């Protein structure tokens, strides 16, 4: 027993299993959240039928997708068609392995962490291209070509802005980046006399494009090329692409939070007197409010099982709020809380942007990438480099 507990591989294995087991569910609920937020922006209710307020919708969706007929088009290149979604999902999930969820919970802290994530997200493009190509359909091909061009273009500003941040952090390790922000007492986005805000904003725009989200969702522009590279996919294979897409959204938001916005640090991490209000009172208040919302929901639904689900949710939220009141547990989970909180804010902005803007055209997309984002990110790199040189 002692031997097992002392094994250095124990924690990574548990973390890996947790991520693989939990993330599909998280992705499902991200979809639900997206639909609900969009519905809120669009004066409608969103999914309301499956479970109370549509809370069981993701489970129903997953169940449906697994039961669907497995169709491989006769004209397709079968092995590549089979492998493409696997490749996409594999790379997207692998990127989680260096994600610093908190100072205690992570799979691995390697000294090339950020490079590893960027490499994995680049490889993910291959899945889309192969999927689009092997489908042997014109819409898929157009979608695949678009995604190849787009992702390669937007990886450049993404890389430049990340490099800028790394110059400030002086390390490539994801944990190290957060630690350096703690040492410096300021999030990287606000360091260098606020000059780092420019790369942070460019990073965010490039991140939206990199994950094929609106207004840069050309590879799967529904009104133009039907569903883009995954037009011919259905059932579970399609679900894998979907999973990969949401995983990469989570990953890219995770990078943004880690590299620019302090990772698992709370806001104003070095201001001592904010310790209690931000680390204890805020989470408790947040979960109590959410729990109260669930309780209110329980009172409003009529079916018995829906009441039960909402009730359990409310209790769960109150329980989580209670956990934050216990100092020992608080210390364990507070980093995780802040990381998730920030990531969710970013995901909310992703959805908000999707609900607001029309879609770019292919040539305009390339223009934005090459004419604006790349020069700005290069300028940001040089200016920040010079400022760093003279201040350090």
């Amino acid at each position, binding site marked *: 027993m002692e031997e097992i507990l002392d094994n250095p591989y124990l924690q990574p294995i548990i973390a890996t299993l947790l991520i693989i087991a939990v993330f599909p569910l998280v992705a499902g609920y991200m979809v639900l959240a997206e639909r609900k937020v969009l519905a809120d922006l*669009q004066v409608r209710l969103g999914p309301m039928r499956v479970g109370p307020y549509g809370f069981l919708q993701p489970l129903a969706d997953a169940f449906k997708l697994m039961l669907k007929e497995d169709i491989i088009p006769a004209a397709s290149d079968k092995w590549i068609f089979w492998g493409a979604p696997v490749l996409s999902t594999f790379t997207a999930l692998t990127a989680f392995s260096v994600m610093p969820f908190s100072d205690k919970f992570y799979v691995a802290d390697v000294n090339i962490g950020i490079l590893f994530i960027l490499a994995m997200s680049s490889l993910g493009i291959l899945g889309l291209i192969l999927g689009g190509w092997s489908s042997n359909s*014109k819409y898929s091909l*157009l979608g695949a070509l678009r995604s190849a061009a787009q992702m390669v273009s937007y990886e450049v500003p993404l890389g430049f802005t990340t490099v800028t941040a790394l110059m400030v952090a002086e390390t490539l390790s994801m944990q190290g980046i957060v630690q350096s922000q703690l040492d410096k007492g300021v999030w990287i986005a606000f360091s260098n006399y606020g000059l780092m805000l420019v790369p942070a904003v460019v990073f965010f725009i490039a991140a939206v494009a990199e994950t094929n989200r*609106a207004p840069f969702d*050309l590879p799967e522009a529904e009104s*133009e090329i*039907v569903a883009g590279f995954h037009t011919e996919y259905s059932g579970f294979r399609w679900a894998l692409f979907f999973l990969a897409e949401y995983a990469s959204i989570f990953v890219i938001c995770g990078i943004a939070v880690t590299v620019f916005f302090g990772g698992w640090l709370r806001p104003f991490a070095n201001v001592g007197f904010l310790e209690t209000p931000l680390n204890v009172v805020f989470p408790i208040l947040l979960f109590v409010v959410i729990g109260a919302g669930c309780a209110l929901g329980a009172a409003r639904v009529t079916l018995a099982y829906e009441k039960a689900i909402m009730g359990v949710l409310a209790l769960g939220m109150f329980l989580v709020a209670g956990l934050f009141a216990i100092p020992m547990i608080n210390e364990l989970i507070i980093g995780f809380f802040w990381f998730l909180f920030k990531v969710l804010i970013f995901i909310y902005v992703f959805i908000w942007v999707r609900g*607001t803007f*029309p879609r770019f055209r292919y040539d305009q997309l390339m223009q934005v990438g090459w004419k604006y984002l790349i020069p700005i990110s290069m300028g940001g790199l040089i200016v920040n480099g010079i400022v760093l040189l003279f201040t350090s």
Partner: protein
Amino acid sequence: MATSTTFLDTNELVLNMGPQHPSTHGVLRVILKLDGEKVMGADCVIGYLHRGVEKIAENRTYQQFAPYVDRMDYVAAVSNGLGYCLAVETLGGIEVPERAQCVRVILTELNRIASHLLWLGTHALDIGAMTPVFYCFREREEVLKIFEKYCGARLTTHAFRIGGLQYETYDTFEKDCHAFCDWFEKKVVEYEELLTTNRIWVGRTKGVGILDAEACKAYGVTGPVLRAAGVEWDLRKAQPYCGYEKYDFDIPTCAGGDTYDRYIVRMQEFHQSVRIIRQAVDSLPEGPIKGRVSKVFKPPVGEAYASIEAPKGELGYYVVSDGSTQPFRLRVRPPSFVNLQALDEMCRGCLVADVVAIIGTIDIVLGEVDR
């Protein structure tokens, strides 16, 4: 064999868009010849929704056929009904009472707003803005509620009868119309804030699908597409019907003839329609709602053509009578069908993404194109 090898040139890709495609607005099929993503030519294949409406007319009495016209441009059913009634009334020399004419104007303008709202929502959706469509449907709902209260139907209303109206207006009709106008004017401003100055929207629509005045005239294109090219042509002013000469309104025009200008013209038309509705509701006269039409209606031998400014352009009905209870021949001049001809010219040199924007900006309804 020779033709197919030239058509399928090695560098060019033939893309079949539709009839099952999310943004061809129904069952339009467009065959695109692409060079990369650049469109070299577009060929429309229509007829998937052909129901032989004109032939059906020959086997129905004049009154029986009236509901059929609603099924052509089903988002502007009231306008269709008006055009048909006007044509038959001209043929039979029927006088329509003042009050009926005024109510016709109100309902037709409300319908113009509903039709333009559907255009705006789907056009924005095609260009990738997914939110406006829901706002547009919210406002359109209010128009449909007024229709429902007036005649019981929401979409295919059959609101008008030959000689006037079937139903008297309901008690709060005037109040509802005014309330809608006041509320809607604020909402239009909201749409304009969302889209008019949005950089992506302007980038996607400016200079896209240009059709100049000469080309419009050559193709016989009418409606907002023609007005966006700078031609001040509106049948409500050019050859007024239903007493449109009594109302004070402007014809919005633009000069560029591109997708953005057509958007601006239609947005302006919202305001003009609201103006007309307000004036018409305020000046709604008392009196009978239906002229003298015999139960067995037999117009004299002859022919008549009547056209109105439908939301999408000139909607004309040509009716030939042989003196019996049924039309000898009926021909519809649908604006969507005529305007759709220009698609190829507008699409050449554009990108695939522009094709859906252009199909949206022509504002077609396939029920009307195929009839």
